[in-house]
């Protein structure tokens, strides 16, 4: 099997080894990995090719959506836990990083990882407290936590309370002025997207990932098979929180201000769930396809005079249609329709 070539139709069902080593050795043995990476690379360089700021801003939002959806997919798609208030990690990470930049004069490049760390620590603590809840109870708890953190920040003077914090524009000088800053933050988000896509693939085809998938399918059975479910779930939750925390710092830094309503906007959470479900939960490619499709639709709807106020209603309708008719999402549907593409559409 180690010498099997890619692609002949019946061999395509064979998922081959699961070790990442083979990516280095086998090259094209893992088409799904290269497809996902290739899509991000091509998408990421679109603004360079077109050379316009409009494209850069569009791609910034798409890449950010892709990495947020891919992060959510680790806990939602791989582990089977619906984190409804996932935006809390984006908001809290953003706040911690923004505070360090605005008040203590930290560099963005230091504050962003610290924001990610803060989100990770929050997930670690939450994991101990709420990951024993199942199904709707867990989802409800995550909503409650987002609301609780928002209320806390709203009353927390250090973070500016309800007004939030603002950044002095002079800060951007250290990054070569506002224009250069917009490019460097763009590349930072691009880099994070690459990292989360590689991480998504690495986790899915690792021993740890197999344990997560087992939890998703049947948590009791997983436990009886030997998966240390409490710690596996907690680490999945932590891993799904770190990148959103870092993105929060970059996003609000670019935005030059942060306030509770923007940081902890619950409907953004729901939009990420729609993205993951639309693309195909539990697949590496799904969040990529789902986030891109959804963001493209969203910007179309927002600019259309007819639909601009109905964008959220549209998201709700879309979620309903997916759950009713294509619960496995675009990638999942393609996988079941064209079984010969299994190894490409992971």
């Amino acid at each position, binding site marked *: 099997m180690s010498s099997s070539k890619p692609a002949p139709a019946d061999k395509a069902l064979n998922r081959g080894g*699961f*070790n990442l080593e083979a990516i280095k050795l086998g090259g094209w043995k893992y088409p799904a990995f290269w497809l996902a990476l290739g899509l991000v690379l091509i998408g990421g360089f679109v603004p360079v090719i077109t050379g316009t700021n409009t494209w850069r801003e569009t791609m910034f939002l798409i890449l950010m959506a892709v990495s947020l959806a891919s992060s959510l997919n680790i806990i939602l798609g791989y582990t089977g836990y619906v984190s409804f208030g996932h935006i809390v990690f984006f908001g809290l990470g953003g706040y911690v990083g923004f505070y360090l930049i605005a008040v203590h004069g930290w560099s963005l490049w230091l504050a962003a990882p610290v924001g990610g760390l803060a989100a990770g620590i929050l997930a670690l603590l939450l994991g101990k407290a709420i990951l024993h809840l199942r199904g709707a109870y867990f989802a409800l708890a995550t909503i409650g936590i987002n609301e609780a953190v928002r209320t806390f920040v709203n009353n927390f003077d250090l973070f500016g309370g309800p007004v939030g914090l603002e950044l002095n524009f002079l800060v951007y000088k250290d990054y070569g002025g506002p224009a250069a800053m917009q490019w460097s933050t763009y590349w930072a988000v691009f880099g994070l997207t690459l990292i989360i896509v590689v991480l998504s693939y690495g986790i899915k085809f690792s*021993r740890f990932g197999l344990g997560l*998938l*087992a939890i998703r399918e049947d948590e009791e*059975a997983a*436990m*009886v098979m030997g998966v240390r479910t409490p710690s596996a779930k907690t680490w999945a939750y932590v891993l799904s929180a770190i990148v959103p925390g870092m993105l929060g710092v970059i996003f609000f830094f670019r935005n030059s201000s942060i306030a509770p309503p923007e940081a902890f906007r619950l409907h953004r959470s729901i939009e990420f769930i729609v993205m993951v479900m639309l693309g195909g939960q539990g697949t590496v490619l799904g969040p990529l396809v789902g986030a891109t499709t959804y963001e493209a639709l969203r910007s179309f709807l927002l600019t259309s005079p007819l639909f601009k106020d109905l964008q959220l209603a549209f998201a709700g309708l879309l979620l309903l249609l997916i759950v009713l008719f294509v619960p496995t999402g675009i990638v999942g549907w393609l996988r079941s329709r064209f079984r010969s593409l299994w190894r490409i559409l992971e």
Partner: protein
Amino acid sequence: MSQNNGALLQVRNVTKEFGGLTAVSNVTFDIPQGQVLGLIGPNGAGKTTLFNCINGVFPITRGQIIFRGVDMTNWKPYDVVRLGLARTHQIVRPLQELTVLENVMAGACYGHEQRPLSQAEEIALEVLEFLHLAERRDQLAANLNVAQKKRLEMARALAARPYLLLLDEVLAGLNPTEIAEMVQVVLRIREQGVTILIIEHVMHALMNVSDRVIVLDHGELIAEGLPGEIVNDPNVIEAYLGDPALAEKLMSGG
């Protein structure tokens, strides 16, 4: 604390209460290394509950469970399997959306030997070959039929490379040909030196594979002995009288 009288598993005065209901009452028995111990009893006697107590799914109310000389009373299921005790479920629990191979690999990865993925795949393929599931390796577990799911359940437990295997009605729902095949599989697992505790309602099959049999009724151990002794034990016959069909099977089964 850690005592060893040569038995692989020692169950000592185990009691399990659910609120006011005593599901398992003061049960004590040993399984010596290499034996097949049959566990029978009427429906609702507490057989599966006893399994759940042994492998840590339910914490026990009183008593002690010693495995390989280690007191593992009230350990979590994932720690129990690491010590080398694997089980199957009466109602099969395949990981539906994973392939047959992935199901068994998970067993090998997280079982007694804690194998890395590449080795887990080798072990899984070996076990699938043994259970005649190798050609199904890339199918989703959800798409298997009942007999195949039963074998998958067994494959997953075997891939954990256990010292002791708890089999919960692996023959239920199978046709006579499949039963005969499965009995051969159990005997071959035993030949490999794996100790087995087996719950079974298919009496003639159980009598064929077991070295000794214990009988549970209303959560209490009412008899213990060789298969031939058990079927003639008046206590056992009485326990089964509530279920005449089973009693008849038992009488003719030896």
